[in-house]
């Protein structure tokens, strides 16, 4: 991924959504842009159709929980298969009420990925056609990938590995 391609994408985004960009970085050469949460669906739609970007392949989508700041990030990775450009978009939502728009209208593949993010992080994608749990049981009441839920059952006392865990 060369720098000039990334410059083009940033220019294209700044043309219309300059006010929405919070941060632009490129960790390990992977262009990552953090946006304000409100217009993400619109931005992805714009990137899909703009002749200079044409990000028409959704690589992946997922949540990340940041307990210190009380936020849940949603990460989208898009790919332009023609120019082989990749981009990662991020939005940060409040942990208490994480609501954002769905991108199932743009990518059919987002359907289950959004359901998975809802299942594990509780992110509500408004407008999703079938937003229910996908991998966990339906009557689960927690969102297990959030950091406050430890991996192991805390009521167990036969296992003590406080020495090695964090």
């Amino acid at each position, binding site marked *: 991924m060369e720098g000039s391609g990334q410059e083009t994408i940033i220019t294209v985004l700044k043309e219309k959504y300059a006010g929405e960009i919070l941060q632009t970085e490129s960790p*390990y050469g992977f262009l990552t842009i953090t946006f304000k949460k409100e217009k993400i669906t619109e931005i992805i739609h714009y990137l899909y159709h703009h002749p200079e970007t044409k990000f028409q392949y959704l690589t992946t989508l997922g949540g*990340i929980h940041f307990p210190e700041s009380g936020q849940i990030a949603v990460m989208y*990775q898009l790919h332009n*298969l023609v120019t082989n450009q990749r981009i990662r978009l991020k939005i940060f939502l409040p942990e208490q009420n994480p609501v954002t728009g769905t991108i199932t209208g743009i990518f059919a593949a987002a*359907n289950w990925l959004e359901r998975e993010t809802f299942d594990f992080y509780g992110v509500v994608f408004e407008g999703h056609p079938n937003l229910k749990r996908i991998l966990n049981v339906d009557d689960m009441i927690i969102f297990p990938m959030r950091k406050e839920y430890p991996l192991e059952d805390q009521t167990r006392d036969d296992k003590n590995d406080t020495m090695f865990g964090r």
Partner: protein
Amino acid sequence: MNENKLLTDEIYVPEEKQYSYLNLGPTHPATHGIFQNVLKMDGEIIVEADPTIGYIHRAFEKLAERRPYNQITPITDRLNYCSAPINNIGWHMTVEKLLGTEIPKRVQYLRVIIMELARITDHLICNAVIGVDTGALTGFVYMFQQRELVYEIYEEICGARLTTNIGRIGGFERDFSPKAWEKINRFLKEFPVILKEFENLLKRNRIFMDRTIGVGGITAEKALNYSFSGPNLRAAGVDYDVRVAMPYSSYEDFDFIIPVGSNGDVYDRFMVRQEEMWQSLNIIKQAIDKLPAGPFHATVPEFYLPPKEEVYNNMEALIYHFKIVMGETDVPKGEVYHCVEGGNGELGFYLISDGGRTPFRLQFRRPCFIYYQAYPEMIKGSMLSDAILTMSSMNVIAGELDA
């Protein structure tokens, strides 16, 4: 309305046409894994399908947040267990990318050999199973013997067969033994003959062609919209292959062809996989011919276990050994995405490290999970027996689907 409404009340809504509902799965001998599909049937035609997944969900992403980096490799084994070495090596490469480790050329070539062997086993099972689902059991039994030969190669290299846990962060635990090379060469000599025979059995077989051509098709546009990858996408006519698009582990050194189909139906998927096996054989031969000399692992003392003699005689080695075994090695902070061409498509590892001993977040981009959601659309309007065939030709692996 009565609160305790029975399920049957919903089903027997008066309609013009009477549909029947069929539970295909969760455990059904023809689905090769635990998949449930509630099918709404009009006679033998599928009107609607409603898949339920997650029967073997094992919380890999949560598990990974508590395990040191070297202990995550066994988790990746259990994603696509038909080609476990690709997952293992993909994970090693993700960590190496995070650490910025320079990998010796020999390791890269050895990895290519292992990954292509894994691709052959993956495709071989899938194609053999397509044969079974069309009623040809002979090919299946015949090809399974060949898979055994590859598993013996794995066994010679790492000691395990199915869930291989092959290699280490930085390279291999030991160099390939003469016995391993002997087995690889034997496989390279014997397998093409058998593969050709298997191909002759089905490729121009009238019954097989009638059962598979035009069945379970998907257009390239739909496939891209559903984020298909790997052989399923290429069968639809899109030549996207991670090995070429973003070469890793020295794939740019090899000369090979990306086969593409045109209709994206079962036959095309079969043929694409078949051709990919030939290409994989070709890549393995090139890798063996060009195999450079050199070390079989990189110098990453924080991650690569030192040899036992050194542990007993050398203070530094002992410290590293202890730190690795106890999982106390720190890694740089960073956010990295690495993808490899798995048996089913783009297998991605999205890793966020906060500098601690375990990943802060690890997401697996599991190709099966992403493309299986197109299944209801692909089988709509087809016969039940074609639905079975479509599923096996998509190579949906339950372990990868449910993580």
